[in-house]
């Protein structure tokens, strides 16, 4: 089997983690990669901790199990740290991308991990300033591209523009706001 990159999203119901996982899947698929995107199966309840998953590979993906050992963990809501088991199953070289106002060092302390790479960004603030609402899912994708480098950033942006244009035909301001959010996140993410 070819190497499969596995991603786990942590969020609260209503924050758009499922949408983000599916949008990420769509844009990565358009880049010619094989991909899966799926939510934690079950009724979605506003505010309850939820998970969503992605698998990305250069070859067709056969596996249909849940993601147990994600290479990358994305946390959309900082208040989940300590509530949801964010570090569960993550290997030593795992990558964490966290929406928070804290620094990577502070987050490392909170998570209680020594290894792995931590990226932080204030996605709420970014989305407030660019989209006008605190919806952190799109900026998190920018941070994801920065952290993984799995697609060249320019190409990713081109695809996102196409996708967003399809989704928000009647609201061009939303498209621009989202694109700006991704770009700022890409630039502003802190790493340790």
């Amino acid at each position: 089997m070819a190497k499969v990159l596995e991603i786990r999203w942590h969020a609260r119901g209503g924050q758009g983690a499922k949408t983000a996982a599916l949008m990420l899947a769509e844009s990565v698929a358009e880049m010619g990669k094989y991909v899966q995107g799926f939510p934690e199966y079950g009724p979605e309840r506003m505010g309850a901790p939820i998970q969503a998953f992605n698998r990305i590979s250069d070859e067709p993906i056969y596996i249909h199990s849940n993601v147990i050992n994600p290479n990358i963990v994305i946390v959309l809501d900082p208040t989940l740290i300590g509530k949801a088991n964010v570090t569960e199953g993550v290997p030593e070289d795992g990558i964490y991308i966290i929406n928070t106002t804290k620094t990577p060092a502070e987050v490392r302390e909170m998570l209680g991990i020594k290894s792995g790479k931590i990226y932080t960004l204030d996605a709420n603030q970014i989305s407030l300033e660019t989209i006008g609402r605190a919806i952190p899912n799109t900026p998190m994708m920018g941070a994801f591209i920065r952290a993984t480098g799995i697609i060249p950033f320019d190409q990713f942006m081109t695809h996102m523009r196409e996708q967003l244009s399809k989704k928000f035909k009647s609201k061009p301001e939303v498209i621009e706001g989202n694109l700006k959010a991704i770009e700022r996140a890409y630039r502003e993410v802190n790493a340790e």
Partner: protein
Amino acid sequence: MKSKVALTGNEAVAQAMKQINPDVVAAYPITPQTEIVQIFSSFVANGEVDTEFVAVESEHSAMSAAIGAAAGGARAMTATSSQGLALMFEVVYIAASMRLPIVFPVVNRALSGPINIHCDHSDAMGLRDSGVIQLFSENAQEAYDNMIQAVRIAEHSDVRLPVMVNMDGFITSHAMDVLEVLDDETVRNFVGTYVPEDYLLDAENPISIGNFDMYDFYFEHKRQQVEAMKAAKEVIREIGKEFGRISGREYGLIESYKLDDADVAVVVLNSAAGTAKGVADELRANGVKAGVLKPRVYRPFPQDEIREALKGVKAVAVLDRAETFSTCGGPIFADIRNVLYDLKNDIKVVNYVYGLGGRDLRLEHVAQVFEELENIRKTGRVDETVKYLGLRE
């Protein structure tokens, strides 16, 4: 022209339905209905299809309306899942016995109780003896491809039976996956224009259908249904080949994965077959001759192909995502063991019930199955014939 897209299983099936552009779709619009119907109804609302969409008050009525439409000469479809299929049960038998080519996707989910909405094959297994053709799909691609072929299979003059296209609830239906979709014209040409043979709205040739049979005719008409099922195997094969020519993806009755030289094999339907293939690949890298058999068609049962594919294998594990409560294993297990009996060799066949109510089938579960098969192969001893995988015991 083909194009690669990322779609959920539900979207892929709705897309196939859009390209098939059936005359009538009758469906119950509320839970446990799936997104398939919701997406399709938006195609209807946007005028992207010519379909007459009939929103009915239950799945029992959905299949009844589809029967009425099909009997009238329309290309008719419906769709459902879990409890909905259970409620449809009675009418599915009638559709089959009236020999109406109704195609209906089923998103496989558990039956209550306890109340559960997750992946499980109990719904489809409940209708395995109803006389409908049952196709199973490993992923969104296969669900899409099966839908398109199902129309031709159902309408073939040697068959004329309903076709149920199954895919795993959530795992396939709600997950986004990469697949290749055909362009509209290719699909249109492949499915062709439906020419019903006998239909009620043919004013020139009035007929009566759905008639009453006493003990003097019922038996004979049931025997005819068996013959149609037999004929369906050849038809499914031919249409699978023809589909290969337009898509590059040829289909048979089963998929045989690395079975040619296999010592140990797993038999499993739908998405879990993909997981099993992944594990088989890993084990092969470590010298274990592992293979996977995935029945694509479960009814009619492809006994010849299965016997041929498994004849060299020493130990087989059948994975069932449904319980029969017979206390001697799941439904597929019974069928497979039955078929292998004719080989008169010492092939060992064991059963694992797995994944009920959406319990995740992990890689290590499948690896454990292969490991136990290797043990059986080496020692020739089977301790327990029916086991549970991923169960807390």
